[in-house]
C-alpha cells in the first residue's frame, strides 16, 4: 500500500516512515508542508495520505484543509489526519457527508503499531477510522434525555466500534463474539436509535456519527 506522509517534524516523520515500512507500507513521498503534500499526492496518486493537522505555514489546521482538498480532488486517495489533541468537531468536518477513505487519529496512536497500521489499511481500502477517544467523547457526552441509555453495555461497545469504522468481522474479533452476534447487536442498535439500516460499512459509520453529533 502506497503512502504519502506530511509532518513538519523531521524526527517524527522519519520515525513514522520506518514504522510504516516495517508494517509493510510503501512510503512513496514525505513532505513538511501542505503544499508539498498536495503536489506529492497529485504526482504519486498514493493509496493513503497521512497528514499532521498542524503543519506550516500557520500551524493551525492546514493539515485538515489539505486533507479536505485531497478528498475533493482525489476521491480515490484515502486520508488519515493525525492530531495532537482530540476534537470531535474536526473529525466531523473531515468526514462531512462521506466516510469513505478517511481517518482521524490521535497522534499518540502511532505508537500502537497494529492499531495504527490497521487503521491506515482500513482507510486505504476505502473504509474509515476514527480515534476511539473521539468516539468515546461523542458517545460519552452527558445528555438530558439520552437515547443511548436504552442500549445495553454490549450494544454500546458495538456502537463505539462501529463509529470507529470497524467492520462486523473486526468487531466480532475484538469483542470475542461471533459475527452473527454482532449483526444482531447492530440490528438492535439501529432499531433502538431508529436509524435506517445499511449494509455498507462507511454509510453505517456516517449514519452513526451524524446521529451522535445530532444529540445535544
Amino acid at each position, binding site marked *: 500500500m502506497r503512502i504519502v506522509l506530511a509532518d513538519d517534524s523531521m*524526527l517524527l516523520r522519519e520515525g513514522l516512515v520506518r514504522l510504516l515500512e516495517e508494517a509493510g507500507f510503501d512510503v512513496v513521498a514525505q513532505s513538511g508542508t501542505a503544499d508539498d503534500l498536495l503536489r506529492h499526492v497529485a504526482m504519486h496518486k498514493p493509496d493513503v495520505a497521512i497528514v499532521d493537522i498542524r503543519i506550516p505555514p500557520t500551524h493551525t489546521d492546514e493539515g485538515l484543509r489539505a486533507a479536505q482538498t485531497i478528498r475533493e480532488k482525489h476521491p480515490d486517495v484515502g486520508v488519515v489526519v493525525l492530531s495532537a489533541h482530540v476534537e470531535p468537531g474536526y473529525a466531523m468536518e473531515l468526514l462531512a457527508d462521506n466516510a469513505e477513505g478517511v481517518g482521524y487519529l490521535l497522534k*499518540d496512536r502511532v505508537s500502537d503499531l497494529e492499531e495504527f497500521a490497521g487503521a491506515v489499511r482500513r482507510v486505504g481500502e476505502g473504509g474509515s477510522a476514527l480515534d476511539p477517544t473521539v468516539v468515546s467523547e461523542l458517545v460519552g457526552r452527558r445528555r438530558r434525555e439520552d437515547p443511548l441509555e436504552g442500549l445495553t453495555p454490549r450494544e454500546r461497545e458495538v456502537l463505539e466500534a462501529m463509529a470507529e469504522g470497524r467492520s462486523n468481522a473486526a468487531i466480532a474479533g475484538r469483542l470475542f463474539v461471533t459475527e452473527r452476534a454482532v449483526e444482531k447487536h447492530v440490528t438492535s442498535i439501529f432499531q433502538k436509535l431508529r436509524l435506517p439500516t445499511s449494509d455498507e460499512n462507511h454509510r453505517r459509520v456516517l449514519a452513526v456519527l451524524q446521529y451522535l453529533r445530532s444529540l445535544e
Partner: protein
Amino acid sequence: MSYTRRLWLSFWPAALAVGALTVLIILQSNHDDQRVVTAVLGPLVGWSFIAAGLVAWSRRPANHTGRLMVALGFAWALTALTEANDKWIYSTGLAVEAIFLAVFIHLVVSFPTGRLSSRLERTIVFGAYGVAVFANALSVLVDPTPIPDCKGCPPNAFLLAPSDAAATAVQVAADVCGIAIAAAVVTLLVRRWRRATPAGRRVLSPIYLSGGATMILLGIAFAVDPWAGGFAGLLKLLASLAFISVPYFFLAGLMRARLARAGVGRLFVDVPENPSPEELHAAFRRALHDPTIRLAHWLPERRLYVDLEGWPFDEVEAGRTLTPVEYEGRRVGALIHDPSLLEEPELLEAAVASARIGLEKDRLQAELRARLIELEREQDFVRTVVDTAPALFCVVDTEGNVMRFNATLSRLSGLPDDDSGRGEPFTKLFLPSEDAASFHLALAAADGEEFESEWLGAGGGRRIVAWSVMPIVDAQGRPRRLISGVDVTERRRQEARTRALLDAMPDLMFRMTREGVYVDYHAHDEVELVSSEVIGRSVYDRLPRPVAEQALAAARRALDEGGVQTHEYSLEVRGVERQYEARVVASAADEVVSIVREITDRKEQEHEVRKSRARIVQAADAERRRLERNLHDGAQQRLVSLSLALRLAEARIPDRLEGAKQILTEAQQELAQALAELRELARGIHPAILTDRGLAAAVEALAARAPLPVEVAAMPDERLPDAVEAAAYYVVAEGLTNVAKYADASYVRVTVERRNGVASVEVADDGIGGADPRAGTGLRGLADRIEALGGRLEVESPATGGTRLWAQMPVG
C-alpha cells in the same frame, strides 16, 4: 283674694286661738312660779314666729323659711302644755316640749333658702328631730319625776317602768346628743359666714346673731346641766328670751330689703344729670349696700361690655353674676353684682330699672371713652411693634432731616432715642459721607429702591444696612419720607462665604426647573458662559437633544426620588470632545441644582487603564497560545517520536530478551500517559480549537466534556474579537467547572449572544444556589479579564436555588 291675705286668713286665727289657749293653761298652772312672765313671753314668742313667718311666706312663696317659722311658732306653743294641771295634758307636753328646738335648728341650718342642701345639713336636722322626739318620749316612759323638784306637778301619766337609773341614762344620752348637734350647727354657721360675700353676710347676720346667741346659751345650759341644774335653768330662760328676738331680727332683715328697694327707687333722683362713673357707682353701691357692684355698657357694634371708664372686660370674675340690662328690647348694659342679690328679685329688678336710665344717660360718653382707650392701645401696640421690629425706621422730611426714629435704630447707632437728633440731616446721623449721594438719589426717587451703606455701629462692629425710602404722610398731613433699613451684615457675610466657596470649586453649577429652564448658574472664570444665553433658556437650547433629555430625566428623578442623580455625557466644546459628569439634587419643590464637572481627563485615564489592562490580558493570551503551540510542536512531537523510536527498538529486540521488551513496553505505557497529560495541560493553557474554529466550536467542546448535560442555547453566528472570545470561553469554562464542583445541578444552559454592540455570556444552572461570588480566585481573575475589556461579570446565586454567571462585554 291675694295670696298674702289668704295666708293670713288661714293661719292667723289659729295662731290667735292657740295663743289664747296657752295663756289659759299657763295662768291656771299650779306648778309655775312665774306664771305671768310665762303667759306673756310664751304667746309672744309663738306669735312673733308665726307673724314673721307669714310675712316671709307671702314675700317669698318659693322660700321655705317662712313656712318653717310658722311651724316653729306652733311647735313653741306645745311647750305650754307642760304647764297644765291635768296629768294627761301635762305628760303629753313633756313628750313634745323639745320639738320646737329641732324646728329651730332646721330653720337656722336651712337659712336663707329654707332648704337643706348638703348631707351634713340633713344629718344635723334629722338628728335634732330624732333626739327631740325620742329622748323626751323615752324619758316620759321611765322617769317618775320628769321635772325635778317640781311642787304641784301632776304625776306622769305615761310612766310604764319607773327607773331613776334609766331616766338618768336617757337624760345623759340626750344631753350628749344635744351638745354634739349644737357644736355641729355652730361649726356649720361659722364656715358659712366665712365663705359669705359682704352682701351675703348682710342677709345672714341678723339671724346668726340672734340664733347663734340662742344656740350658745342652750349649748352652755346643756353642758352645765348635770352639775348645776339651777344655773342651767337660768341659762335656758335667757335662751328663751334670745329666742324671742329671732323672728324680729329676721323681720328686720326683710324690712331692710324692702327699704333697699325704696333706695333704688330713689336712685335716679339722686343721680345728677350727667353722672360721672364714680357718681353712678356710688349711687348704686349706696342703694344696694354692695360696695363691689359694677355697671357695664354694652357696645353692640363691638359685641362687648365695657366698664364705665371704657375698659373692656373679657369675662365676669368667679363668684360674680352678670345681669343684662335691656332698654326697649335691646341690650344697653349689665349689672355685675353679688349672686346673693338674686335672692331679692324685686331689689334686683329695681336696680336694673335704675341702671337702665343711668346707662342710657352715660351711653355716648362711654362709647367715646371706649374709642379713646382703643386708640391709645392701638398706638401703644404700633409703637411696640415699631420699636421691637428688627428693621430700622426713620421718618424724615422731604429735605432728609430726621423727624423721629425707632428704638432699633437707636440701639444700632448708639444715638439716644430722644429729641436730640430731631431736625438733623439723616446723612449726618446715620450714614458715612461717601453714601450721602446715593441717599439723596433714593430720597428724591422715594420709590423703595434699595441702596446699601456700611457704617460703624454702636458696638464698634461694621454693619451693612440695606436702606429704602418710601413716601408717607404724617398725622398732620405733611409729606414725609419713611426710611427703612435692614441690617444685612450677616446675610452679606454669608453670601460672601458662599461665593468664595463656589468660586473655589471647579464645577459648573446650574439651577433649573423641572421643565429644564435655567434659573441661575455659577461658573468659574475659565468657562465662558454668557448670562443671557443661559438664564431663562431651556436645556434644549444649550445641549444636543439626547443630552438635554438625559439632563431632564435626571432632574425628574432627583425631584421624584430624591438623592443625588448622576449622568454622564460628552459635548463638543470648541472642536474638542469633552466628557462631563452631572450630579443633580433637588433644591426646591420644583427646582434642581446640577453640578457639572468635566471628567475628560478621568475618562481618558480610565480608557487608558482599560486599554492597558486589555493589552495585558491579550499579551497573556498570546503567551498562552505560544506556550500551547510549543507544547504541541515541541514536547509532544518529541515524545511521540520517542514513542515511535521505542516501538521500533522493541521490534528489534530479540524475543529471548523478555526482560528488556517488558521494560520497553512499560516505558511506552508511561509515555502514552505522559502524552495524555500533556494534552490536557496544553488544552488547559489554551484551547487550540478556540483559535482555529472559534468560540462556538470551543464551547461545544466544553459542553461535550462536561460531566453533566449542557445545553448551548445560543451562539453568535459570526466570530467575535479574539479577546472577547477568549473571555467568553473562560467564563463558560469557569462556569461549567463551578457547576460541576458545587452546584449539585442536573442541567446547565449556556447562552452567548451579541446584541447592540454587547456580547453577553450566561451560564445558568438549576442547582442549589447560594454560591459566594467572592469565594475563589477563579472568578476574581475572570472578572479582571472582563473588566479589562470594559465589561462586567456578575454572579447571581440566590439561596432559593439556581446560579447564574453572567458577563457582558462591549464588542466594538
